[in-house]
């Protein structure tokens, strides 16, 4: 059933785009959205819901700029479809300042100079939030590993790792 060769050539036909009703919790608020079920979550967030914090760098899972949390675990919004969110709890960088830990991540990024152009920052901050929440005991190598799916073209990473090491030490 997965044979790519079955794929029809040419323009898909059939009824116009049908939208689905998808209900989930977004940054602490219950939301219901109408979207085509296979809409990419990054597009749903940025274009339909106006939450432009999450960025699209590569669209293929390699840069981490679109990192969000679903049910408390990091996920890539470029590799999820909208229907997958039904009933889930979604957190994006827009909710970073809603928790003490999130505010500490934000403040540490600022004070450590971990933000230059800022394009990687939303994804980086969510990956950072995940690691300090889940394992505040994480040492520097563990934190590097936790951020290893997030690319930054500006900072050279040292400032970012410093910031997260600092937050982890505060959380312990």
């Amino acid at each position: 059933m997965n044979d790519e060769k079955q794929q029809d050539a040419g323009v898909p036909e059939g009824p116009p785009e049908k939208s689905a009703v998808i209900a989930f919790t977004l940054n602490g608020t219950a939301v219901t959205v109408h979207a085509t079920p296979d809409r990419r979550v990054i597009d749903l967030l940025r274009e339909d819901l106006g939450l432009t914090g999450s960025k699209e760098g590569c669209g293929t899972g390699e840069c981490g700029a679109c990192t969000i949390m679903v049910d408390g675990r990091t996920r890539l919004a470029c590799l999820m479809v909208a229907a997958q969110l039904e009933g889930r709890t979604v957190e994006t960088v827009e909710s970073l300042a809603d928790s003490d830990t999130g505010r500490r991540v934000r403040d540490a990024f600022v004070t450590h100079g971990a933000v230059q152009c800022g394009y990687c920052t939303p994804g980086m901050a969510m990956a950072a939030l995940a690691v300090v929440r889940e394992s505040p005991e994480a040492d520097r190598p563990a934190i590097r590993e936790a951020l290893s799916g997030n690319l930054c073209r500006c900072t050279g990473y040292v400032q970012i790792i410093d910031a997260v090491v600092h937050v982890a030490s505060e959380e312990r």
Partner: protein
Amino acid sequence: MRPVLFPTTLAALFDIVEHQPDARLMAGGTDLLVRLRQGPADRRPLICLERMARLNGITTENNTVIIGAATPLSAIIADPLVQRHCPLLARAAATVGGPAIRNMATLGGNICTASPAGDTLPPLYLLDARLDLAAAHATRQVPIAAFITGPGRTDLRSGELLTAIRIPMAERFGLQHFEKVGRRNALAIAVASLAALIRLTPGGRVAEARLAWGSVGPCVVRCSEAEARLTGRRLTSETLRAAGAAARAAVTPIDDIRATTAYRRDLVANLPLRLGAAT
């Protein structure tokens, strides 16, 4: 627009498959969604496996670890049963992508993708993993080495689903090593990898050795010649070099954007030397 379906039982899934035979299965989507993006749009439905409780989770039965096909790699890496009975698999899974990819990517997806660079495959070959396959009216069990038939090719039949991976407990192998060489440390596709299961006698000689290389041929290369060079000996750099030389002759690596054939052959020969450091 593609419809997206979330069956929660096998019966519901096979019902969808029967009525919409062109539907695609999606586990974590980390291979499939990247692939679909590259092709033209179509209307073939996606059948998501993520809400099928039966496909998610890890249990043991008759000295076998049973991993649901849609279990995410991060759950496998953290699982105490896996860490105890087949740490080799956890080590290899931990090198796939980055943390968010591992929260999404599943073991079943890694197997069905059948990439020559699939990092869980060399361990699964060495661990003698068997795959549970189910169709609407039939089930069967196939050893991993028979299931993977070529690069990107498997013996998965139309209408069939991989439900679980069965791994005989392997703690008698005190040395379980996985090493991958990529272009960088994180998020790197393997240029070459080595998986090893070694059982040493109390005196430090090799009682049993299993070695497999990834990314250096169309499928995983298990090399009995190399294994024989270790058996009965100590893991000195001399014996490890001999094993590496045997493997170098057995592999057929390709030139690609990640590395040349010659470099891959050198890696194949040199990777076993790390086993000396790992003891």
